[in-house]
């Protein structure tokens, strides 16, 4: 049962991390981040007690909430303007308009597939490095590490940078959870997640702040 749930969680983090790169609407991205943390929670619970894994989920959702609050206060800065090709435009809702098939999206998708393939091919090596780690943890950990780096490489706005770092950190936390089960480390990592989100919120809002704030 746990095996199939964790496998579903791997698929969930694969989908959410890919869409996080492709989609430009910040509302959907924050939602995807929350979903991603849900998957991370299930995978971490393979190594950590449920209460500690739950702390990870709560910290992740709080990070998403902090970013969301900052973006509600200043939504213009974080929206990546899509290059609209009029003949390809969807006439439907704004959310769908942002996931229309654009050339760069095909490229992002292709790059994500490559990262996925790398994760699958490198997983056996990691399995020999970290004793006792499960395949689902390696796949999802490497996938999130790769997708985080991909996101950091493709986008240079503060929101994407923070989302990339949070994704990267989630991947690391999944792998590290198999090594270290200290409550203090869990606390530190939760604080770092929240701190990154707060730093992101500051970077999103700071250009509009008065200089002497």
């Amino acid at each position, binding site marked *: 049962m746990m095996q199939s749930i964790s496998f579903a969680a791997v698929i969930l983090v694969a989908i959410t991390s890919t869409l996080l790169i492709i989609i430009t609407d910040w509302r959907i991205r924050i939602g995807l981040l929350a979903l991603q943390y849900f998957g991370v929670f299930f995978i971490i619970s393979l190594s950590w007690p449920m209460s500690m894994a739950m702390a990870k989920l709560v910290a992740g959702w709080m990070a998403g909430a902090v970013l969301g609050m900052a973006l509600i206060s200043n939504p213009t800065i974080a929206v990546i303007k899509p290059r609209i090709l009029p003949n390809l435009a969807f006439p439907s809702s704004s959310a769908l308009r942002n996931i229309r098939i654009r050339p760069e999206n095909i490229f992002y998708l292709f790059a994500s597939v490559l990262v996925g393939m790398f994760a699958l091919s490198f997983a056996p090596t990691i399995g020999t490095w970290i004793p006792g780690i499960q395949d689902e943890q390696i796949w999802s950990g490497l996938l999130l590490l790769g997708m985080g780096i991909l996101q950091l490489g493709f986008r240079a706005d503060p929101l994407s940078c923070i989302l990339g770092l949070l994704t990267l950190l989630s991947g690391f936390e999944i792998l590290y959870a198999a090594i270290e089960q200290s409550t203090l480390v869990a606390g530190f990592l939760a604080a770092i997640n929240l701190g990154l989100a707060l730093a992101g919120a500051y970077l999103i809002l*700071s250009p509009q702040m008065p200089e002497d704030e």
Partner: protein
Amino acid sequence: MNAAIIWIFFPLLAAAFLYILRRYTLLVQIFGIIIVIFLAFLAWQLPIGRPIVLGPWQALPKLLITPSLSILGRQFVLEDSARSALMIIYIGASIWFIGSTGIKISRLFIPLGLAIAAILTASISVEPFIYAALLIEMAVIICVPILSPPGAPVSRGVLRFLVFQTIGMILLVFSSWVVGQVELNKIDTHLTIRAVTLLALGFMMAMSAFPFNTWVTLVAENAHPYEVAFVFFTLPELVSLFAYSLFVRYNWLQQTSTLYLLFSLLGLLMIVGGGVLAFFQNNLGRILGYAVITEIGIFIITIGQILTGVQKNPIGDANLIAGVPLAGFFFALLLPRGFTLALWALALTIIKQKTKSLDFQSVRGVGYSLPLVVLSLSLAGFSLAGYPLLAGYPVREVLGAGIAQQNQPLASLTLLGYFGLATAVVRSISLLFKNQEGQIRQIAETRLQIFLLVSGCLILFTVGLFPQIILSGQRALFP
């Protein structure tokens, strides 16, 4: 009473309190300075783990500062031997806080600076020490508001800084675990190679070593020079303390010749590259950035020298640096570096507040109205370039002699880096005193600024002329 409560949690609490009071700038500055000086004084006077008699009152119960505090199953340990490091951390903070009184500074600077000092202390005390990498990341996050001031667009440099430091933290935490595994299984060469590779990559990112140093000049160009220089001083200090602990703890790391070679080449590349590139810059902020890159190179090469010193120590072929107490030598780098960077950044900030930009076009002829500022900037620059009689010289001399003992061409190349930096400073001086029509020749520094600049210059000379003041202090602290 507990050491961790005094030197970690009290300053953290004080930082939160000062953050609440941030609108009262002067009050925050005064409180901040008093707190850090008080903490440095306590570190100097109060022994940890030994009963302290309260003055002449023998009848009163003796005060005992316990060294360890347990939190969530892990320990924060500050032994009596850590008092020297505590003094350096809080004296360092006091230098920066005192310097900030002479210029317009962000309201967040003192509260965040105090929090960074507390985190720095926590990072040297946490057990197992690999968690220090996580604390370094927290300090990095706190640095973000310092590097990206309110009202200014977010620079690419800040985002790069955050990315490199976070990836560096991940690599350091993971490599620390692998290093621990090597300690258990020293025969496995693959494991050793893996540990060394991860560790080297992690340090390169966290120390902003080449090629991960691109953020330094980007940030130095745009942000507040004084606040940026504080980050440039604190973060490499934090990371190098972590590196130092790691090398002291694991003997096999000290004997890894690959690491020595990597550190030496990387340090050399940064000293030469930073110095030479500084010469070609047209912005005073960027020159400071490249000077910092040179400084990071010196840190890296010092770690390499410490490794060599340990390797060659047992037999007659003793390295010069092996004769110096390692911790003392390492810490002797920090305070003069703090003085010098603070003075340079103070001078740059005064110039920027007058001209609004540090581009060569904007600062032309500023020296006629800010002569002491230019003097301080020059002395600080020459000090970092290793000129005799200035604070940076004594340690650089020992370091240079140590490198020359190992490899003379390498030592000559480091001189090229110092020469590039010195030439950049000379170029800046000539520009700052470039005569222009209608130039106002009136001293524009305030009295407080004059006091701070003159004191800074005197300190540079005092440390340069009488290095034994700091070095003997270090020797007493690290017998």
